[in-house]
């Protein structure tokens, strides 16, 4: 389990160094996008429209934060990751269209995303689900917010982060997936589970 500290922009060369199980920390700029922001970004890109910020070489964070406005400034109250598999629908297209090399979320992503990550040289990293307070300690401030019409959980938050992590590498640029290995092992364990419970799988 090696540990890496990256500053944005994070290049394809940077992410090719890391392997599943490694831990990374990110400093610089991270933006949030959940289901609806992914969908909107891709729709706008199809129409040839410009994004509110250039996503290239930044990290996309699957997160819908709790926020509050204090003296006219947005503040992040809690900002842990959301379940990443929902974004399997969009992520291959998203990293291809916008040159995003680091995806942050929780719970892992599927084969479609892993395949794209191998081809496009990107990585998936997992933050501990629900650990929103630890996450917000790494978030220094809200730089910008866009698409507020989607609601505060779904809109696009541009965040300045410092030593944001620990992020456990779940999919690396070889397309290897830590979550897949664990899931395969779980299936392999079915035999002894069935024996224990007296059922056949």
């Amino acid at each position, binding site marked *: 389990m090696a540990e890496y500290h990256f500053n944005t922009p994070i290049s394809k060369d940077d992410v090719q160094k890391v392997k599943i199980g490694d831990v990374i920390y990110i400093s610089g700029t991270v933006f949030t996008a959940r289901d609806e922001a992914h969908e909107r970004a891709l729709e706008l890109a199809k129409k040839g429209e410009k994004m509110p910020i250039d996503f290239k070489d930044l990290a996309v964070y699957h997160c819908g934060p*709790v926020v509050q406005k204090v003296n006219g400034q947005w503040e992040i109250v809690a900002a842990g990751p959301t379940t990443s598999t929902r974004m399997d629908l969009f992520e291959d297209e998203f990293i291809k269209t916008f040159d995003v090399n680091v995806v942050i979320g929780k719970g892992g992503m599927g084969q479609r995303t892993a395949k794209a990550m191998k081809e496009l040289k990107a990585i998936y990293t997992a933050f501990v689900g629900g650990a*929103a307070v630890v996450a917000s300690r790494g978030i220094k401030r809200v730089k910008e917010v866009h698409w507020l019409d989607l609601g505060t959980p779904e809109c696009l938050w541009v965040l300045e982060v410092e030593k944001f992590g620990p992020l*456990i590498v779940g999919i690396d640029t070889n397309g290897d997936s830590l979550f897949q290995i664990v899931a395969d092992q779980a299936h392999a364990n079915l035999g002894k589970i069935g024996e224990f419970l007296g059922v056949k799988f």
Partner: protein
Amino acid sequence: MNEPFDNKIIEDTTVKLLKFAATQLPNDVSEALKKMYEEETRPPSKAALKTIVENFGIAEETSTPMCQDTGIHIYYVNIGEHFPKVVGIEETLRKASARATKEVPLRPNAVNPIVGGNSGDNTGKHIPYVNYDFIPGVNYLEITAFPKGGGSENMCTLAMLKPGEGIKGVKKFVIETILKAGGQPCPPVVVGVGIGGGADIALKLGKKQLMRPIGQRHSDPEIAKLEEDLLKAINMTGFGSMGLGGDISTALDVKVEYAHRHPASLPAAVAIQCWAARRATARIYPDKRVEFLTHKEA
């Protein structure tokens, strides 16, 4: 006795319950997670548990929501049959949800599924959802705030099994649900299993089991044994905390309840709760005294 009870007390108590639930785990949950962190041996899961324990510690100290998903608002309301008349309790609970959303603050989580759009204050059609029970022989009103996270909710399942599949079929279905869920519902999870009744009844029973403290076994020894066996079997999958691979940390506990079934049906429901097993309960007495059961008032 015919004067309705003061709803302001119910509202203020419920706002407190929502704040407690969002910011402090009940003792049984926090102790179980700490113990699991000490006992888990595989590094990725142990590392995740370390972050989890650190996270809920800071959340409690700083009165901040422990998870950004502060849940969709569900209440369990037990009305003692000797409690004074209550009028408009549902409206009072809605007010409490909206107030807590601003005051804690909580994330607005009520979205219109037909036309889209977030209501912004955690209220909407049928939300907050209130489960009512009448309790014979007592004089209090007991309210449990149960903010339920979406990630774990998405992994809940229902199967209408063939009665011939029997309890073995139920066990199999529980394990298959866990296999599909993997790391997605933020393990270590609490699993509530509801058997029998009907489709809605099985799900309701399964979910209601999530109110029981960690480690508490069913009073029926047969069901208690089923709970223990399922817990062991789920942890044998090896998913571990956050699905990163671990020997003992896929599930914190399993709770089972059943209802008698129709001869033709065997409904089985699995309700899944993430490690942030948030719930807060208070009892309000006719003399306006409020007793918090899961949390201590500062």
